[in-house]
């Protein structure tokens, strides 16, 4: 079936191979419903007008009509069975990924998505996928239930802590032919970007902001030509900077990471802002921190590193040991430490 690549009034754009089938079924049910609804409301209105109370006209006693009863009891079963069967067939298609699918590992946490490409490349809150190739996501959550939902692809699957769940899709081109087949390979060329939502309620942080609650646990799927995607995987990634650039100091890179990794969900970085679930950072660096076990320690680079590597080893007094371990490369670790240090000097 042809993909409708622009959103309609009812449904989002059809950008995966599942979408046309799902939408066809949606439309089928929709029109069946419309027919039934018009029938129900139409006949009701007709009777209401025709048999409205008139002086001297009595209601006719109700008779029996078992054949009619049996007819409307059992005849809808045919349509219902069709819906069930088509729905199930479509669902089974979604349930069984092809063996050759590109496997991307997804780690959900409150309130950010981490993606790991097959070659180990990690991305935060965005993921690059090839067009026209089946992609399987193997998903896990470190804390509570989440749900990975891409309306454009018509896929959704809960992400459950303590077990793996999986979904797959095959993205289609939005605008076939817009990029010629012989166009040069470009790791930065993106055909289109689709929105990822978290569809299972997962709480909220104290302050409102990006990646700070169920409602802002967004991510983006960047769809690329396969050769561009391959190139993207093998190209070293520039570091992220707050202004979207690729050149910046360690502190600025750390600031970017602080947002991208969702640290702000628990750690306050505005001086004078409300206390969140974890220690606030302004003015923290260099002070003595009392620990839950009664000892105390100076907040220095080593302490911060230790706390990120193994969050439960040195829990600050008055806080719960709720911090997850978050994967960082060595440069990222250094950048974050530099950023936290810079906050401490404010």
């Amino acid at each position, binding site marked *: 079936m042809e993909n409708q690549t622009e959103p309609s009034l009812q449904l989002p754009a059809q950008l995966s191979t599942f979408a046309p089938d799902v939408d066809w079924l949606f439309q089928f049910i929709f029109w069946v419903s419309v027919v039934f609804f018009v029938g129900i409301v139409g006949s009701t209105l007709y009777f209401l007008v025709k048999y409205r109370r008139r002086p001297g006209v009595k209601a006719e006693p109700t008779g029996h009509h078992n054949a009619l009863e049996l007819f409307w009891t059992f005849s809808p079963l045919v349509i219902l069975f069709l819906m069930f069967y088509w729905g199930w067939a479509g669902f089974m298609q979604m349930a069984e990924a092809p063996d050759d699918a590109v496997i991307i590992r997804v780690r959900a946490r409150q309130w950010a998505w981490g993606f790991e490409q097959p070659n180990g490349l990690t991305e935060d809150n965005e993921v690059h996928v090839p067009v026209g190739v089946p992609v399987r996501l193997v998903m896990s959550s470190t804390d509570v239930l989440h749900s990975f939902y891409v309306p454009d692809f018509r896929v959704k699957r809960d992400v459950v802590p*303590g077990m793996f769940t999986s979904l797959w899709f095959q993205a289609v081109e939005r605008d076939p032919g817009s990029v010629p087949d012989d166009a040069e390979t470009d790791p930065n060329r993106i055909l289109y970007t689709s929105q990822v939502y978290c569809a299972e309620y997962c709480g909220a942080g104290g302050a409102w902001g990006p990646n700070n609650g169920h409602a802002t646990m967004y991510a983006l799927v960047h769809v690329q030509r396969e050769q561009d995607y391959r190139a993207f995987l093998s190209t070293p990634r520039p570091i992220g900077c707050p202004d979207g650039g690729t050149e910046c100091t360690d502190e600025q890179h750390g600031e970017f990471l602080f947002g991208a990794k969702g640290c702000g969900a628990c750690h306050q970085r505005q001086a004078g802002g409300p206390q969140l679930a974890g220690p606030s950072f302004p003015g923290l660096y260099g002070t003595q921190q009392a620990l839950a076990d009664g000892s105390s320690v100076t907040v220095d680079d080593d302490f911060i590193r230790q706390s990120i590597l193994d969050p439960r080893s040195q829990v600050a007094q008055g806080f719960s040991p709720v911090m997850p371990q978050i994967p960082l490369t060595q440069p990222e670790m250094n950048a974050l430490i530099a950023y936290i240090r810079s906050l401490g000097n404010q």
Partner: protein
Amino acid sequence: MSDHSHDHSHSDGAVHVHVHDVSLYLKVFGALIFFTVVTVATSYLDIDGFVRPGTPHGAGGMNFLLAMAIATAKATFVCVWFMHLKEDARFNALIFVGGVLFAAVFLAYTLNDTYYRQHEDRFQGVLVHPSTGERAPGGLSDIGGSCEVPANCLSYACQGGRCVEYVPVHHEGAAGGEHGAAAEGEHGGAAEGEPHGAAAEGEAPAEH
């Protein structure tokens, strides 16, 4: 209206029941004790090994089935005689059996889901990643305690009490060191993050 009180059979409106002999109750009690002794005795027998030699004790489910069959027999005795379902209104028996039936539906469907979760897709609903052996994070807490992070360890993962160099794909990044209410007690379960899900209870003997 068969169950209605204004029925002809009770025209005087008084309650009439048939009173059983004491000996009946004693016989039922004797049977219950007999079954109890049998079920305890059979629990020492290795029926699975007897039916299919080589099966570990309890693994074949035969002991389980036998014990449940005996329990059901005992329950039937209690219901029919002690609770007088035999001569009580049929509808009361129906209510009771109906209750059991709905409990059975609840049990059957839920077990069906648990049992078949990864049958269609080996990545679906599994606790251990089928390709990498990674244990799903967010699950049973790491009881290995905290890592002594050596100064030269610049990677991020603390697994089973050791600081492990982070190697993508083959090791779980965010595994281990879970948190939340569970973490406060730091008990239970095995060290997490061991490849291929080896439930390495022995890794953390100090806790027990």
